[in-house]
């Protein structure tokens, strides 16, 4: 975080004459007051809809909380103990981690490749940019609808195309080993547009002189990418992967619409399981414990990422 607020004196000159606040406050106090006023509207909403809600949810996780029941039963840490011993929870965690890893990796690679390609001095840049961003404009329901059909074992066009290569129909969404990769592929298709935009912005912000200098030294295209683009995109990659991990850990719509968690529990994800607990089994308290635990897992993975990629990056 670049705190560069070192140049106050100049403003101090003009301050006393023009201040609208005729309070006998020092400059820094006035600045702080202004800051709090700027923050007030946001903080009101933040406290009500985020902080209060999170506290309520954490509190709920200590109850056997059923939404329709008049009184709720305090159970202490029971929900967390149960969760720790709940093999479905661990299946969901495993599936979610695999899904997130595949999706974040795939999304980052595809987005970066697309961004590098689209920032070359070529024609039709904006056309490609629009095309490649299009899936991101769809809602998850539409994405699911499209891909269920593409991946269908019996009627799917992917299997049809593969049949020309002599490949037998593949049970994409019905095979335990393939279902998570298939959902991941769907998600990469849907979601690489946004990180692509961010990479484009990152690449455009790299000064041309760096490339010029390297070219004079005889670097080829690959070396330019490897020694200039990639290192300078480090903060961007961190941003893309961190936000990617946070959002993909919360995957819900894809399994909900495309597989119903199957085959067996082969595509149960944490939020899918949470949804089942909260709205099918009517157990909001246990569901809250799941949600809180997921937040902890996400925090751990985010911290790891900062460790791995983010050493020299500041936000």
């Amino acid at each position, binding site marked *: 975080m670049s705190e560069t607020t070192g140049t106050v004196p100049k403003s101090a000159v003009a301050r006393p004459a023009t201040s609208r606040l005729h309070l006998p406050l020092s400059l820094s106090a006035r600045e702080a007051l202004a800051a709090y006023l700027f923050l007030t509207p946001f903080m009101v909403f933040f406290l009500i809809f985020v902080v209060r809600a999170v506290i309520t949810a954490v509190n709920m996780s200590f109850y056997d909380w059923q939404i329709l029941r008049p009184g709720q039963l305090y159970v202490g840490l029971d929900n967390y103990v149960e969760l720790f011993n709940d093999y479905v929870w661990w299946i969901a965690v495993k599936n979610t981690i695999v899904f997130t890893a595949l999706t974040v990796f795939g999304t980052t690679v595809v987005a970066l490749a697309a961004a590098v390609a689209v920032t070359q001095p070529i024609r039709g840049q904006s056309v490609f940019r629009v095309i490649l961003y299009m899936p991101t404009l769809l809602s998850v329901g539409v994405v699911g609808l499209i891909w269920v059909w593409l991946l269908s074992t*019996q009627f799917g066009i992917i299997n049809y195309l593969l049949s020309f290569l002599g490949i037998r129909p593949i049970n994409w969404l019905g095979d335990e080993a393939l279902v998570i990769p298939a959902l991941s592929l769907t998600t990469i298709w849907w979601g690489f547009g946004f990180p692509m935009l961010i990479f484009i912005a990152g690449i455009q912000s790299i000064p041309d002189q760096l490339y010029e200098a390297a070219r004079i030294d005889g670097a080829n295209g690959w070396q330019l990418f490897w020694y200039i683009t990639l290192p300078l995109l480090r903060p961007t990659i961190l941003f893309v992967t961190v936000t990617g991990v946070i959002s993909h850990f919360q995957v819900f719509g894809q399994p909900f619409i495309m597989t119903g968690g199957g085959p067996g529990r*082969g595509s149960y994800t944490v939020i899918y399981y949470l949804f089942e607990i909260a709205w*099918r089994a009517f157990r909001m308290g246990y569901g809250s414990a799941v949600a809180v635990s997921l937040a902890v897992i996400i925090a751990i993975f985010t911290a790891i990422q900062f460790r791995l990629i983010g050493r020299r990056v500041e936000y």
Partner: protein
Amino acid sequence: MSKRPLFAFLVTILSIFVLSMSVVSIQAQEEEAEPEVLPSPTPAIAELGTGGTHISFWNGLTGSDGVTLNEMLAQFVEENPDISVTTEIVDWNTLYTKLQAAFVAGQPPELILLHASEIAQFASYGVLKDLSSWYSDGGGWFPVDDLSATTYDGMIYEGVPYGIPLDNHGRGLWINTDAFERAGVDPDMEPPTTYEGWVELFQQLTLDVNGNNAASPDFDPENVAQWGFAVGEWPFVNWYSVLHQHGGSMLSEDGTTATVNSPESILALQQFVDLVYTYNVSPPAAGFDTWAGFAAGNVAVLPTGTWFRNFAVLQTDINWKAWPQLQFGDQKATWFGIHTFMVPATLEGEKLEAVERLIQWVSEHQVDWASSGQVPARLSAQAQLDPETYPTNILLGQTFTEYGVLEPKHVAMLELRAAIEPELGAALNGQKSAEEALNDAAERMQQALDRVN
């Protein structure tokens, strides 16, 4: 580009909106000019009548049965012009979520259609109305003796009836007679009554691309053109029926112990697993669209249910007939459910009176409900069915009355189902053995039972 992008942004949105509106109205006008007959899906919402007393009615009848019910209600509001009805159809899973939210919000619909197996859960929260005064044994209009004992019992939670039954719906087999003939099997044969008999039949009916059946040594299980059976459609119902055929049950008599890992239960599930992995007569459960497979002629015997009738009649050009539920065990047993009207506990006065009138009207016109494919709940209505039009309803209805089994009454029934269904799927997809899957299911179910009881 404008210098004020936000402003431009909002203007764009507005103009798109206006544009889409005008397109819509033009479309609508054209439509009025030349009405066309299209095969219409069930409307997810229907607004019926204009009467002052308004009833909002939620149900999960997303199939063609929803159309039937809407037609009945249209007639009802015609005869009762002071009442108007809005029916809203969402798939069952979604309906449970919406219902909980609506009850919590204090805005439940005036009328709900759920299943008998969910009565215990909702009644235990005190959100359902006690309907004992509507039944004849409480002095009301619904004759108790016009229901099978199982059906009436299904309405009751802790001695109080909370629902009025609309139908019995349950498992039946749809057989593709052409597929039988392709395999050289006479479709008019008597259905087998033992597991071995069924396996033999399915083997004859399963053909590979070269025309060899599954019993032949030259059979190529990698290239099957026609399956004898399909385990994928709602495996819970298959397993539950066969479980009872072997004399097993899902819960102990007193409802405190999960008995889904009993030998009977493991045997029941194993028999279905073997159809896939030992005998190669069924595709695995996941990734095979059973209805489309039947419509495409790829499945000879489809285990489905009463609700399949209209799809089979209207949406396939397959020559078919219905058989009762298959029999793998010593006893006859078949799963069935009851679509049940329920009323929120908070409903009073004029609306309650209107809802009662609606339910009574529908109950007295249950014969019409048969065109949905389902079997009317009232025995008198079942007796009035025309055998020419409703052979499947009559055939399957008799099996429900004679040896149908409902799901156990339990306040955590939805949770118990959520515990077992993925395990059945896992076994049928070869991810776990039947025994492992059912042990895991039993453990989870037992936890739920211990918590609730």
